[in-house]
């Protein structure tokens, strides 16, 4: 019974991420975090590499990621803060480049001990108690895959942001990654922790200049403790030569809320998992996302809404447009664990197909193991409404302009939830450019 698939020879490690690379990376890192890396590396070695025949990877083959063409970048050390255009809008800004990362503390929150921002290696040395909670990846609710383990072992930029209990941030925190490299693998690991009853907004912008090319394998772990409110906005704007593999998890405890907006506009190739476990009773998650693919872009996003406790709520809205020869994949799953009663869960995915060569796949799913709940999902694929276009054109607006107005209107439901104008402007700019 030899099938073609089995006959295929398999290399279990991701090219460039082997024992040699690991040893070299460890040399550039602080002593305190090596033990955890070592454990993760062993796990990584034991896991099978994802294959194109795996359901998860059927639409985005792992072979599409050119790992053989990139070099793992050394660990990014603490360095100087570099100013950016919108920094004045935030209490705290972390600027990250290949040379180092720097922190600006405009409101004195760090000085007052209300917020902690530090590299993961530094955190492992200074805050071993705090870090111990996060090292085993408690937010990650599923068996780790190859790339998650890769990130745990090989991360070359690690950041801990801890908001202390009862602290309310007025303006929020910006983490700005701008990693220049001709052919580098950037492996960031971001740990966000909101203490009980705290409230904060964290904006994460990832980009690079047009002449660089990176593969970004990122992991984000978010812990929202009892009664806290965490708003997260992730804007991914890597350039067309880059690839992005993301694995983001949030764990929301009792009566806490997360509002999470994912904006995946950049990168030639994206494979992202956006997962949220409303783990404590009475917790809630509002998950929104926008994407607009163009050229030969391929954006594959999978969302997970996990309800492991009773009386939990989640709402998800992902909207996207596909143009030119691009391809988008959306896969959404709502999971209600046994015993998770009185659950309300909603999931909507709307897609606009703007060109005949573009393709949108949507796979909304419900996996329900409990009774006494309300779950629903809806998905649509369509094109621009002719009536709406006609209405605008009859008022003297050009076809091209009318299209953009309608697409902006389509995005508005999510865009208006973004509390920063400069980010909303980015959304409008993408519509202007790609519409």
């Amino acid at each position, binding site marked *: *019974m*030899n*099938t073609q698939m089995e006959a295929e020879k398999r290399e279990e490690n991701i090219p460039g991420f082997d024992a040699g690379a690991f040893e070299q990376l460890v040399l550039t890192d602080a002593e305190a975090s090596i033990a955890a890396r070592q454990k993760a590396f062993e796990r990584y070695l034991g896991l099978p590499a994802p294959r194109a025949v795996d*359901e998860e990877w059927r639409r985005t083959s792992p072979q599409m990621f050119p790992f053989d063409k990139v070099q793992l970048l050394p660990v990014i050390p603490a360095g100087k803060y570099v100013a950016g255009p919108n920094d004045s809008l935030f209490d705290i800004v972390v600027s990250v480049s290949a040379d180092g990362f720097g922190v600006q503390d405009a409101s004195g929150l760090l000085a007052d001990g209300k917020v902690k921002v530090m590299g993961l290696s530094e955190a492992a040395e200074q805050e071993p108690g705090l870090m111990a909670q996060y090292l085993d990846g408690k937010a990650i609710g599923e068996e780790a895959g190859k790339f998650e383990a890769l990130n745990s072992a090989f991360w070359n930029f690690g950041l801990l942001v801890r908001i202390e209990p009862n602290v309310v941030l007025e303006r929020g925190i910006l983490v700005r990654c701008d990693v220049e490299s001709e052919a580098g693998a950037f492996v960031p690991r971001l740990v966000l922790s909101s203490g009980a009853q705290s409230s904060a907004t964290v904006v994460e912008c990832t980009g690079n200049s047009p002449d660089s090319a990176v593969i970004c394998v990122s992991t984000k772990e978010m812990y929202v403790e009892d009664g806290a409110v965490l708003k997260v906005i992730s804007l991914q704007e890597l350039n067309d030569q880059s690839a992005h593999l993301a694995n983001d998890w949030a764990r929301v405890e009792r009566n806490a809320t997360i509002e999470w907006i994912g904006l995946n506009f950049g990168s030639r190739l994206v494979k992202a998992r956006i997962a949220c476990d409303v783990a404590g009773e009475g917790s809630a998650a509002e998950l929104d996302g926008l994407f607009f693919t163009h050229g030969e872009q391929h954006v594959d996003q999978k969302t997970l809404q996990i309800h492991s406790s009773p009386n939990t709520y989640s709402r998800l809205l992902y909207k996207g447009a596909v143009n030119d020869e691009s391809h988008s994949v959306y896969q959404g799953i709502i999971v209600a664990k*046994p015993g998770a*009663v009185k659950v309300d869960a909603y999931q909507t995915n709307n*897609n606009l*197909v*703007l*060109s*005949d*060569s*573009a*393709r*949108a*796949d*949507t*796979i*909304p*799913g*419900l*996996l*329900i*193991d*409990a*009774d*006494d*709940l*309300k*779950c*629903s*999902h*809806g*998905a*649509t*694929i*369509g*094109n621009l409404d002719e009536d709406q276009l006609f209405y605008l054109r009859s008022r003297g607006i050009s076809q091209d302009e009318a299209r953009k107005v309608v697409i902006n209107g389509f995005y508005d439901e999510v865009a208006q939830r973004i509390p920063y104008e400069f980010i909303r402007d980015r959304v409008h700019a993408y519509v202007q450019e790609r519409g």
Partner: protein
Amino acid sequence: MSEIETKETFASGEYKYGFVTDIEADEAPKGLNEDIIRFISAKKNEPEWMLEWRLKAYRWWTTRKEPRWALLDYPEIDYQDIRYYSAPKKMIDRFKNEDGEIDPEISKTFERLGIPLGEAKRLEGVAVDAVFDSVSVATSHQEMLEEMGIIFCPISEAIIKHPDLIKKYMGAVVPHTDNYFASLNSAVFTDGSFVYVPKGVKCPVELSTYFRINAQDTGQFERTLIIADEGAYVSYLEGCTAPMRDTNQLHAAVVELIAMDNAEIKYATIQNWYAGDEKGRGGIYNFVTKRGHCRGRKSKISWTQVEAGAAITWKYPSCILEGDGSTGEFYSVAVTNNRMQADTGTKMIHVGNNTKSTIVSKGISCDESVNTYRGLVQVVPGAKGCRNYSICDSMLVGDKCSANTVPYIEAEDSTAIIEHEATTSKISEDQLFYIKSRGIDEESAINLVVNGFCKDVFKKLPLEFAVEATKLLEIKLEGSIG
């Protein structure tokens, strides 16, 4: 319609089709190899080309592995421990004897099932082909249909009498390389129905096949092929039952439908195979490949199914919408109780321009069962103006059951409009309270709510079937509540 009123129904409190008919059977030894296939082919007096086709399928099958991607959990199937052919002994000479007498025991079996085979007691408006284990035992109304040019006969007869049609269409929709179970069926299929409706003919009666598994350790592998030529219309019903046994039995069927220009085929199933007891012992493993091909312009294929039985159901009646303006429909009610597991749904492949499809799926899970809707809506590049609307609702009755919805939607054309909606919820307390406050007891109230939930599907069934489906549902829900 008086016959229908006196007719027994599929449904009753206990699984009343669990009886075994004591008849002498002509059987093949257990196991599967090329000799067994030659044996089956010889039993059926098949021509050489048919045997070759079976062997080709068998050889392909041996190179494949059983698919395990569905949300189903069952032990390894030993394909060598199954008997692939069993026929009531007195029927062997059927094709030699013009008015072949039916064993009174079998006749009685079908009467107990509510399918009288005697001409006198024939159902009005329904032509029946009854399949007992591996062979077809009787087909009614044949002369009347023949006058209109409609062919309705067991497929084994069609292979001999209409080889041209069989050669042309068998495997045209579900090729022997389609999937593991379809290729197994292609190798060992024993009987099933063949329908050909010629150009412009609207079949005036409902055609019906009744499948019955009787012998122990036997698999049933039937194959049905329905062709509606230009402008033709046919409505086809299928019902299934099996005796209660502690061991699992395998049923792997293939159904192929082909609709030419302006033709319409309606295919309705009430599947009530024995589902095992409350501990999950026994029951039928139901692995079925059903697919319709809308070849012609403005053709239409409509699947309606009520899945109430079988320990394991793996079934995705699909439509390939090739003809411009063709329509595919799928209406399904799947009820699972005890430890039943169902992974069922549909595939709508839009190839032609302006093709339309509708999917309405209602799942009801009780006790410790697992009920999954799995579907695909695909618009291939260049198919203009395609439209799909899907609604998948699941109702949970009990706190140990699972309800899953896994739809796949792939649009490769900018003119496609696809809408999908799904909900999962507990049976509505408000609705129950409203009904109970009018003096109706809880069980009846639940029946009313569930029937309302399934109404969109039941109204697509022919009247007699709709009545039975309602009753069947009532029985399945009995005792699942509270």
